[in-house]
């Protein structure tokens, strides 16, 4: 009878240990992999490549692209416009949330990600493209 009692206590230990180990493993996985990937830099770079492709034709600036038709011409869907800011020098293109531009000289994980690149065009013209992507709320 008492031997059975001991076995029962040990079984409780077994379950307790099993639970502790499982909980610890789950906690470690959540802590380690739970942080979401920050794709804002990659998103901004991809947008810059897309913009660079669409504002040029035969390696010169396509003057037909302007602020009014930019999104349609470049097949860009900003979705929630407050999340993005796009600026193309020379063509006078400014789209999205202008307030995000103020964060470009500041650095921080929680601040909007600012990517600015330049493209050399045929004939020596240099065009600057800036994309700012805000953090998803």
């Amino acid at each position, binding site marked *: 009878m008492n031997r059975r009692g001991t076995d029962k206590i040990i079984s409780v230990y077994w379950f307790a240990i099993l639970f502790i180990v499982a909980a610890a493993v789950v906690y470690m996985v959540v802590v380690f992999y739970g942080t979401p990937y920050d*794709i804002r830099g990659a998103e901004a770079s991809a947008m810059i490549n897309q913009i660079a492709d669409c504002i040029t034709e035969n390696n010169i600036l396509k003057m037909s692209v302007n602020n009014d038709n930019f999104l349609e011409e470049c097949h860009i869907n900003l979705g929630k416009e407050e999340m993005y800011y796009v600026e193309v020098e020379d063509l006078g293109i400014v789209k999205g949330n202008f307030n995000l531009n103020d964060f470009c000289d500041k650095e921080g994980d929680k601040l909007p990600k600012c990517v600015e690149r330049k493209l050399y065009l045929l004939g020596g013209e240099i065009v600057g493209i800036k994309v700012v992507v805000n953090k998803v709320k």
Partner: protein
Amino acid sequence: MKNPRGQIGEAKNQRFFLAPLDQKLKKGQIGDTMTWVVATLVIVVILGVSVFAATLSPIKSSREFKLDRKADLLATKSLVNYLSSEEKGEIIYTKLRKEEKLKNSTKIIEGLYEDDYYREADLYIVNNKDVVSGEIYDVKCEVESKIKLNNLKDILLCLGRKG
């Protein structure tokens, strides 16, 4: 005559066999329980260390997804445009090839992308993987761009990334 050791052993045996059954089982229980208490402590300590290490891990704080780091579309485009541009009525590529100064064209990369790349860059023409023209430095080729000149020749650009 019994030797004294034998007497002691006999006395121990008598005590065990004459002891009440409850007492004997309790000893067994205490032994098992102690083993499990120690085992639990050991498991909890090992798990605690693992959880602490996972929390401190530097990997989780730098989970920035990066696009293909081996290619740079804009830098390649800029270089092609620069080489195809004209200077004093002559195409820059032809001029630099004539002067054997093709490597000078990487100044365009330095000027436009100095925040991204080191000043040193390799640019050379390859013909079936053999270098035909250009100087090769020991640049760590982190970004590699190949520009096709014709069916046989390519221009190869090697850049070293900052950060």
